[in-house]
């Protein structure tokens, strides 16, 4: 099962490597990992997408909680939640493809954020599935470069990860 785990951790040097080190040392897998400070500069918020059996996920949550730098965490997938990923794509855009790619960007509600004579740089936000579908659709032209931020997320409704 795929799980999205949100973590509030002390914004200190080395905190990230404690989390990353835990995953590699115990052989847990990381599909994606994002991290940045929150509105409270002393805290970072990290989002990890991982996969594993219920027993493994339970261990991941317990082991993360055990890290002294981890203040609080939440398994977003345990309840209703919103997940988003940001993607930037550079594609070849010449001749008829300039219009075709523009149409695709509109359909997926993306944006063209940079233009040259022969390329477009596109921005798209959405779920992993939406981003995957967009990349597939873009295969009509040449994709030069894809960069994805990794998933970040937040719980729906009143549920929140705060201290």
């Amino acid at each position, binding site marked *: 099962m795929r799980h999205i785990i949100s973590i509030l*951790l002390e914004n200190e040097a*080395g905190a990230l490597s*404690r989390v990353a080190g835990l995953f590699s040392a115990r052989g847990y897998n990381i599909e994606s990992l994002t991290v940045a400070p929150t509105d409270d500069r002393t805290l970072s918020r990290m989002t990890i997408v991982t996969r594993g059996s219920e027993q493994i996920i339970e*261990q991941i949550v*317990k082991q993360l*909680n055990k890290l*002294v*730098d981890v203040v609080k965490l939440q398994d977003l997938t345990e309840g209703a939640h919103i997940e988003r990923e940001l993607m930037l794509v550079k594609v070849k855009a010449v001749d008829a493809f300039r219009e075709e790619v523009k149409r695709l960007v509109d359909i997926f509600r993306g944006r063209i954020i940079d233009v040259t004579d022969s390329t477009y740089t596109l921005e798209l936000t959405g779920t992993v599935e939406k981003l995957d579908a967009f990349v597939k659709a873009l295969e009509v032209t040449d994709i030069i470069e894809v960069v994805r931020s990794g998933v970040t997320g937040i719980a729906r409704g009143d549920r929140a990860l705060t201290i």
Partner: protein
Amino acid sequence: MELTGADIVVRCLQDEGIEYIFGYPGGAALHIYDALYTQEKVKHILVRHEQAAAHAADGYARATGKPGVVLVTSGPGVTNAVTGIATAYMDSIPMVVISGQVPTHLIGDDAFQEVDAVGITRPCVKHNFLVKDVKDLASTIKKAFYVATTGRPGPVLVDVPKDITAHKTEYIYPKSVAMRSYAPVSKGHPKQVKRALEILLSAKRPMIYTGGGIIMAEAQSELRELVRTLGYPCTNTLMGLGSYPADDPMFLGMLGMHGTYEANMAMHDCDVMLAIGARFDDRITGDLAKFSPYSKIIHVDVDPSSIGKNVRVDVPIVGDAKSVVTELLNQMKAADRKPDEAALKKWWKQIEEWRSIKSLEYDRTSELIKPQFVLEKLHEVTAGDAYVTSDVGQHQMWAAQYYGFNQPRRWINSGGLGTMGFGLPAAMGVQLAFPDSPVVCVTGEASIIMCIQELSTCRQYDLPIKIVNLNNRYMGMVRQWQEFFYDRRYSHSYMDALPDFEALAKAFGHSGMRIEKPGDVEGALREALAMKDRLVFMDFITDQTENVYPMIAAGSGHNQMHLHPGTGEPPEERELA
């Protein structure tokens, strides 16, 4: 008044009430060493290798329950200590390691004796810190002691760059620590305890299995009361030996790979298992698929991540062993239910049958010295009251099986990491903590060589440790596995070109003995232990072919034990009550 960082380090140790620190000086730690020189409150023990500093601090911590403190320099000082830190980590031993670091402006420059101490120790510490401002130094050291000694204890490293030890600031040692990200649970949830009690009282074939957590929490009296009130059998892990008296009839001995027949069979056949402060390690469970197939499991542990890690648990209780067992006892007194006497009688009858196999029997007629015999005699001569440290291998298992520990904190060994070289330095820490008590290091000729240099430290501080070297000219446990599982291909397990240990001990300024006949064992032990003012190295030349029994081979279940060839095979047909 403003103090230098180095003075602050020493003042923190004084204010923490630290008696001994174990260390080795070097460039990055020189300011701290200079600060140590001008005071007498904290006594520094100069080891001969940083690994030994960590083991000695570890031994001190295991014997006293107080945190062990280590001081090393940067680079190789830290890397040498890593084995000792990892040893303490695996066995949850409270320890604070202060390491010198190159000056902050050189960090990352591949400076002389620079190593990323925080990075290299991260996987084997409970937590670690790099101090970047002298203003944070005292509060960081306070946090280090707090984290190391609370919850599930463990080693904490504080890396202090040399320039920080020269900078000055006002010294304030915080009285208490509050960390929003660290709040260890101590009390178990009363509702969970209630559920546990219901299951415990409905048991027909109960088993109480306890580990090092009882010793950490000082819960031995509570455990005793629990076992006696319930009338249930009790077994200890290697790390838990001494938490329940070995000479008590309710005690079934150690369990696991080299556990007794009765302990392992009872683990296999029980219908309710109460595990306290034990972590279902692979040396305990054997093949998980075959582990205790009929039991409901109640697991008490201070570390939530220990629960449900290896086996499924029916009633998890997160909490300190002492508070949970106390709560169990209180609820039991209030409950009107009693254990099922009839079922219990039947269960004990079965256990006694298993016990009658005498799985720890060995050949007592041999003309060679049997290692088991040495340990039985050691128990006799010391009245079971010595602190016994060990290294790792056959001698460690024999000490665990035959010494018979009746009190906690007397059995000091590297259980989790299995570190050869642990025994002698650990004994130094124990002897310093208890200068008037007998401290015996049970070792083998392969293990003792790994930290033999510490004989020099023992001489410097007049530590009257007694070394029992069970010398079989093999890495015995390796040889045993090669005999059983590698068709007797004894690849590199033979210890060739051994030193004359008696002469070696003398060269270091100690006494030495060589004992070759079973008839001389007791006399030698008595003579050595009577020499209270000196270290005596007893080199016992033992039977090379002796193996540790019983044994559960890797991948087998608890009911599939190899017994000593002389014991005969266990009965096959069994009926569950």
